[in-house]
Every structure is written in structure tokens, then in C-alpha cells.
């Protein structure tokens, strides 16, 4: 019998995995809670990185690798990053061939813009809705395979768990048809989770409502290792909202946008009338080299400091100005049209003529399911190795934001679309190798195994339908989000994290007294939410526990009580005392946070990075001033 493959998730990573499998002639079932064209990848705005070097800047994949590793403060295995950065130019060309309407130069070539954490024009873009355009291109290719009969879509289906055999290998999945509430088990020789990030654990974030992290959390509960959970990226520039925080892309600054507050704290004037010399461009002042394009963790910290510690929020609000009004309106429309419209539509003010008011918001999870890799002695990724993107569960793969592998302690802007596609490109062939070389020895998936999975979940949902307690699950979910926002974003303190873990555990107790609100069997969104909420609470606990245990500051994880002092010299390598403190910190903490589920709470260990034995780049101080 021909092998069977399952991909869960229809964003960029999932669809790229599907394409690689289908291109090899394999039959793939893709599961998604929304029609795949509506996946969260559509929200990515600014662009996709690749060192194509069209601007005479001497850019090179090696420099892209270095920028990525530095931005992530070296908290990741290095060969996959090198593989990704070297593949980036050809990935951009591939997307170009698929018809992505990338912005062009006057010569008809691809245009590239600046982004944070680099000094090069490295970001290809399609207006300011690049993620949407990339997703549509992959969606179209998958539709082509679907019409050829190689791909079957299960849309409006939610992943519940993987099916585990006696040896602990993944042999398929159990999923819920959200329209009919039917539960089914599906066999597979290899499964890839491409289910995105957990932004909704934070309540309001820049994420879509579907980004609950529930699939990743459930895989962790079922035995997959979760890595670097505490590393959550807070994007510096978003519009605060009641239902979500809407992203204002880094590309606004890449195209010349400037962050400022009035120099005079009590200046009540219309921002348009405040002269340049009475504006405080705090990022440009402190970081003369990278200016407004410092990495995101740095920019978010500075904005939060200016607003909360110095009380300098504009117009008495938690906000600073993001100003693009000096850029001609026609240029803004051509290069940033999508986000100009979003600001106009949701705030009711034209950002082409009035500075935008923005504040940091939870955006992306660098952490995720642990995945393996295989590289040769030159640190080149081994093509088709079954270990690429493999979790610790045999037969279970992970790709995209759900994996931990490409961003370390802080993701570089415009690297997420790239990492999703690259991970999908190597996950597909890895799954095929696994299915050919490992899975056939196992034979067909026994019916009893599938039946057990189906029965377990049918029983669990029967219990959920009977939940008639006093707690509204959506209220618990909101409180979880508010708690997480308050204690586990830009600045963290151990006391808060300790208390927070206790509060999450109380919420888990309250969950048991939930009311399902709806016992229907058609699109019962409450029942599915009750199940998701438990998984989100587990993930919240995991994020807090890992954050509590890591007593240092690195990338997005910032604890003032454990931060290195500012170096005495502009270049930190010239300050021997500081370098010694930095070395000691790395010795203790330059390790992956590896979490395994247990009923008593996460079991966390800190494990050394294997690629540091033969690094592509030795860790160096991360400094952008």
C-alpha cells in the first residue's frame, strides 16, 4: 500500500510541506480549522528576507546567517539557520515564479527594503501584505495538486492528538469535524504539525483568533518536547484594540518611519505642529547605527521604558508616535498601502498625514516543539535526512512557528515567512525518507489503535458536553490572557511569575467547573473552545515556569534583576569586565530550555547546544548601539 501523509495546518509551512510531498507524487491529507486560504500567514506584512544583494551592498547568505544568529542571541542550533539563509534567495525566486506580485524596481527586477536587525536591503515585499500574497501563491499550487487528486483537504477540522503506538511512534491523528462535531481517526506513516503559534494564550495579540497553540500544547502533553517556551516576541509597533492588537509592520520603519515622543513631557500640541527639534527620537539617539531598525526586543523594551518608567506616553496614553508623514503619500501607498489602510480603517485617522500612535504587542513565539536536524561536518544540512524537522516522537514532524528552530531568543523581522517555507521544504522530503526507511517495517496501522484514539476523544467530548458548572470558559480565557500580558511580556520578575503559575493552576481548577454553554452538535464553538482552553492553560503554565527558571536576560526574555550591566565602552568587547560577565552568563545559560510534560507540571532541563561544538559563528556580544 502506498504511504499516507498528514499535514496539520494550512499556513505557509503546512502548504509548503504539502507541495513538497505532492510534488514527489505522494498522497497528502491536509487538516485545517479554517479554509487554508484564511490561515494566519495572511497577517504577515513586511516581507521575506533573502540575501539576493541587488543593491550593491555586498550582502551574502553568511551575513544573513550572522544577523539571524546575533538577533537570536545564539540560543539555537546553527546549521538549520545557515541552510535557511542559503536557501532564501532561491525561495524568493520560487515565489516569484509562482506569481507573487512582489514590488519591482524600474528595471522590472525584485525590489528589496530594509528591515530590523540588519544594515542591508534584504527584504522582498508585496506591498504591505506579503504574507497574504505568499500564502495565496502556495494555496494556488496546492489547489493545483488538489485538482489532480494528490491532495485532500479537511477544512473545518481540528487536530485533537496524534495516535501513538506501543513503541511511542506517531501513526496518525484524531481530529474533530467542527461542523458536525464528529470525531475520526486517520492513519498516516508520517504527520507534520504546522499549526502556528500560541498568541491567543496572551488574549489580545497581533495573532489571529485561531492561533491558540492548542495542537502544539496537546502534542507536548502527549510526549513531544517543547523548547524555549519563555521566548515570546513582543512587536514594538501595534495598534492596541479591544478584540486584538493590529500590527503596524516593521516595514514602516524600513521605509523610513521614525519613532518619537515630544521632548517636553507636557507638550499637548497636535504632533504635526511640533517642530523637529522639539521631538525626542529616542531610538535614533541611543542606537545611531541601526536607529529605528534595532531588533524588535530592543525596540519594544525602549518604548515600554519611555512610556512606563519615564511616563512619556503621548497624549497621556500608553503610546508613542510612529511617524511616516515625511514620506510622500504616493510612495506610502505603493510600498505600505496595506497597513496605511488598516490604520485608517481601524483608527479612523490618515497615517499619511498624522503620526500613528502605537504600542508593543505580543506577536510571535520563538519557542515551540523541539525539532532535530542533521548536518555534515561543514554544517550543511543533509538533504532528505529523516531527522530534519523531526520531533522526538518518531513519525511526528513540526514546521513553522510551531517549531522552535530558527529564531533563538528573538526573531529577526521578515525571517518568519522564510523559516516557515524553508522548514516546509525540508520537512516534506524528511517525512518521505522516514516513511520509506522506518515506517514500512511497521506495516498498516492497526484498526484497534485508531479505534482507541477515536474512543478516547469521543469520551472526552462527551464529558465536555456534560459540563454544566458555573464558570464561563471564555471568561477564564480572558483572565488567562490578561494575566499573561501583565507578567510575561517585555519585562519579567520572578515574584510575578511565581504568583502567575499559582493563578494559572487556579484557573485549571476553575476549568473543571466550566459550563459548556452549548450542547449542540453543529458548529459547537464553545465545546471546541473548552478543549482548546485546557491546552492553552497548560501552555500558559509552561511559558511561565520556563520563564521563571531562566534567571538571565536574553533577547525577548528580559529580567531586570538578572540583566548584564551596560558596558563601559561603546564596543562591549573593549570592556574586559563586561566580557567576563557575558562569558559567565553564557556558560550557565546558553542552553535550550527543554520541557517535558508531567501531570505535576512541566519537567524542565537546560541542555547544551550541540552545534556549539563546531559552530558556524562563535557566540559574540549582541550589541546594536
Amino acid at each position, binding site marked *: 500500500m502506498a504511504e499516507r501523509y498528514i499535514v496539520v495546518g494550512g499556513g505557509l509551512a503546512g502548504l509548503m510541506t504539502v*507541495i*513538497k510531498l505532492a*510534488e514527489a507524487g505522494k498522497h497528502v491529507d491536509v487538516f485545517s480549522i*479554517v*479554509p487554508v*486560504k*484564511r*490561515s494566519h500567514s*495572511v*497577517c504577515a506584512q513586511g516581507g521575506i528576507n533573502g540575501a539576493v544583494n541587488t543593491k550593491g551592498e555586498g550582502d551574502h547568505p553568511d551575513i544573513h546567517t550572522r544577523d539571524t544568529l546575533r538577533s537570536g542571541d545564539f540560543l539555537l542550533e546553527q546549521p538549520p539557520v545557515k541552510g535557511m539563509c542559503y536557501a532564501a534567495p532561491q525561495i524568493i*525566486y*520560487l515565489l516569484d*515564479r*509562482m*506569481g507573487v*506580485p*512582489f*514590488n*519591482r524596481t*524600474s528595471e*522590472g*527586477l525584485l525590489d528589496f527594503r530594509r528591515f530590523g536587525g540588519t544594515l542591508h536591503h534584504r527584504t522582498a515585499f*508585496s*506591498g504591505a501584505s506579503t504574507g*497574504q*500574497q505568499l500564502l*495565496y501563491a502556495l494555496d*494556488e*499550487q496546492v*489547489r*493545483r495538486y*488538489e*485538482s489532480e487528486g494528490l491532495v485532500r483537504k479537511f477544512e473545518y477540522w481540528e487536530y485533537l492528538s496524534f495516535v501513538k503506538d506501543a513503541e511511542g511512534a506517531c501513526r496518525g491523528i484524531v481530529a474533530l469535524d467542527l*461542523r458536525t462535531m464528529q470525531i475520526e481517526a486517520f492513519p498516516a506513516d508520517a504527520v507534520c504539525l504546522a499549526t502556528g503559534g500560541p498568541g491567543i494564550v496572551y488574549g489580545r495579540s497581533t495573532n*489571529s*483568533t*485561531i492561533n491558540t497553540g492548542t495542537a502544539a500544547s496537546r502534542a507536548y502533553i502527549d510526549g513531544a518536547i517543547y523548547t524555549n517556551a519563555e521566548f515570546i516576541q513582543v512587536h514594538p509597533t501595534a495598534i*492596541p*484594540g*479591544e*478584540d*486584538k492588537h*493590529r*500590527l503596524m509592520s516593521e516595514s514602516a520603519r524600513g521605509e523610513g518611519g521614525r519613532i518619537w515622543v515630544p521632548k517636553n513631557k507636557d507638550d499637548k500640541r497636535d504632533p504635526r505642529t511640533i517642530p523637529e527639534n522639539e521631538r525626542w527620537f529616542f531610538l535614533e539617539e541611543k542606537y545611531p547605527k541601526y536607529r529605528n531598525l534595532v531588533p524588535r526586543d530592543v525596540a519594544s523594551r525602549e518604548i515600554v521604558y519611555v512610556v512606563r518608567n519615564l511616563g512619556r506616553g503621548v497624549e497621556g496614553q500608553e503610546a508613542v508616535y510612529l511617524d511616516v508623514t515625511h514620506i510622500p503619500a504616493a510612495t506610502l501607498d*505603493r510600498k505600505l498601502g*496595506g497597513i496605511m489602510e*488598516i490604520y485608517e*480603517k*481601524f483608527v479612523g485617522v490618515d497615517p499619511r498625514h498624522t503620526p500613528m500612535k502605537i504600542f508593543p504587542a505580543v506577536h510571535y513565539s520563538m519557542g515551540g516543539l523541539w525539532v532535530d536536524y542533521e548536518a555534515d561536518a561543514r554544517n550543511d544540512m543533509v538533504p532528505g535526512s529523516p531527522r530534519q524537522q523531526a520531533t522526538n516522537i518518531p513519525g511526528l514532524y513540526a514546521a513553522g512557528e510551531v517549531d522552535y528552530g530558527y529564531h533563538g531568543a528573538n526573531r529577526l523581522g521578515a525571517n518568519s515567512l522564510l523559516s516557515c517555507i524553508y522548514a516546509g521544504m525540508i520537512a516534506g522530503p524528511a517525512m518521505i525518507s522516514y516513511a520509506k526507511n522506518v515506517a514500512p517495517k511497521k506495516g498498516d496501522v492497526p484498526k484497534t489503535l485508531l479505534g482507541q484514539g477515536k474512543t478516547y476523544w469521543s469520551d472526552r467530548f462527551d464529558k465536555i458536553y456534560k459540563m454544566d458548572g458555573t464558570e*464561563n470558559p*471564555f*471568561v477564564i480565557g480572558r483572565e488567562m490572557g490578561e494575566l499573561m500580558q501583565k507578567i510575561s511580556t517585555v519585562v519579567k520578575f520572578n515574584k510575578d511569575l511565581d504568583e502567575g503559575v499559582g493563578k494559572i493552576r487556579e484557573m485549571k481548577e476553575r476549568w473543571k467547573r466550566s459550563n459548556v*454553554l*452549548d450542547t*449542540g452538535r*453543529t*458548529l*459547537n*464553538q*464553545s465545546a471546541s473552545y473548552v478543549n482548546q482552553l485546557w491546552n492553552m492553560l497548560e501552555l500558559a503554565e509552561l511559558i511561565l515556569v520556563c520563564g521563571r527558571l531562566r534567571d538571565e536576560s536574553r533577547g525577548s526574555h528580559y529580567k531586570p534583576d538578572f540583566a548584564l550591566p551596560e558596558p563601559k565602552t561603546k564596543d562591549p568587547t573593549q570592556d574586559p569586565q563586561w566580557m567576563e560577565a557575558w562569558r559567565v552568563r553564557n556558560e550557565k545559560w546558553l542552553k535550550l530550555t527543554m520541557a517535558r510534560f508531567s501531570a505535576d507540571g512541566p519537567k524542565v532541563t537546560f541542555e547544551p547546544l550541540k552545534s556549539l561544538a563546531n559552530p558556524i559563528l562563535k557566540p559574540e556580544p549582541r550589541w546594536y548601539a
Partner: protein
Amino acid sequence: MADQIVMRIERRDGPDAPARWEEFKVPSHPNANVISVLMEIQRNPVTSDGKRTTPPAWDAACLEEVCGSCTMVINGRVRQACSALINRLEQPITLTPMKKFPLIRDLAVDRGKMFEALKRVRGWIPIDGTYDLGPGPRQAPEDQEINYVLSTCMTCGCCLEVCPQVGKDTAFIGAAAISQVRLFNNHPTGKMHADERLRGLMETGGVNDCGKAANCAEACPKGIPLTSSIAEMARATTRQAFKDWFLRDERAAGAGPA
């Protein structure tokens, strides 16, 4: 600002279930939109006459008008619920599901036929594989700008909902898929296979079924010039019909485009 938001929702427990109206009152809050009100109702699913009910079902994902999920009819106008700001809506606010698509429940409908239409018109660039084959064709910035706008179609269904030619018993494919043909046929590689897509528009329910009501372009939340797309594709299919007739022998002999 009133201290309460009043919302009336047309509800059905399933496609064949009877319809009923339920009214909700939720406290006003800053930056309220239809989604934040629906979320508030989830947290307290009680109607304004104090009756406990189930939380209404609706589709949502991105909440920034790029995914198309939360499309519904708000105060009689089809649009995305996320960008429907409460302070710009007359109250009581009425929510109904789109009527041109099979209902799933409450405000959620099945727009699967729009994705099927994209298959029918072969809405993709047939690339020769994902291998490293170098850059794509060069394009003038002006062409890219036209294609970008066409490519922002999020398959939300507004254009079908307002089209008098689209109904339960009609075959019309609708503006979205027609405009997608224009997008792919404008692309330098897509052009090579323009004939196949045009033929998809020449079958029953194709571009000739357009009644020129022009409601679609007005309803499109992305400002896609749908009426020009339809006009252009109508011309192109006419040319294609002549071309197919003149080349009928070559096509029969297998020499022409398949």
C-alpha cells in the same frame, strides 16, 4: 456614546432549523467593533430579556480584514465584522448570515463553492516544480501594481452576496473567480496558459452570465476593480471563441494548445 450596544442576531441552529431573532445588550467599550461585541456575548450569553442562550456561532480569524473569514451582513450591508466599528453603525445593529451560500449555523456559511470555482478556472501559475530554476520573469512596476490589487482578493464572498445573478438555482461563477482569471492571465507565465482559463469562463455560468448590475465592485472591501475585470474577461473570451474556431483543426490534430 451610548452606554450600551444593542445587537440583534438572526440565528439558526443548523441549515434546516427555523430562524429566530435574539437581541443582546452589552456595555459600551472603547474601540468596539462587531467582533468585540460578539466576544462579549460569548462571555455572557444572555439575551436582553434575560434569557440564557448559546453563544452565536460565527467565523473569524485575522480580524484585520485580510483573511475574509468574518464576512456577514451588518445592518443590511455585507462586509467584514472586524472592520465594522460600532460608533459608525446605527443601533440596534442587526447581524444576518450571507444568503447566497449554504448556512452552517447562525452567522457561519459554507463558501466552498468559491474555492471550487478557483479550481474550475485553473487559478494558478503552472510552475515546473519547486526546484532552483532561477528568478521569474521581469515585470514592469505598473503591471505589478495592477496585479497586486487583483491579488488582494480574499475570497470573502461580498461580490457574490450582492450579485443578482448569483442565487441558489443559478450557475453564475461570480466576479471573484473572473477577476482571478484576469490576474493569472496578466502574469507573464500565466499568459502562456490563458486559453485554458478563458475556456473555464466560457462554460455554463461563465462570464456571459454577468447581468452588469455592477454591485460587485461597490461591495468589494478591497476596492478591486471587478467590473473592469469582468469587461476585460468578456472581451478576452470572445476573442478566445474566435481563436478556438479558427484553430479548430489544429486543436483537433493536437497541434494547438491543449
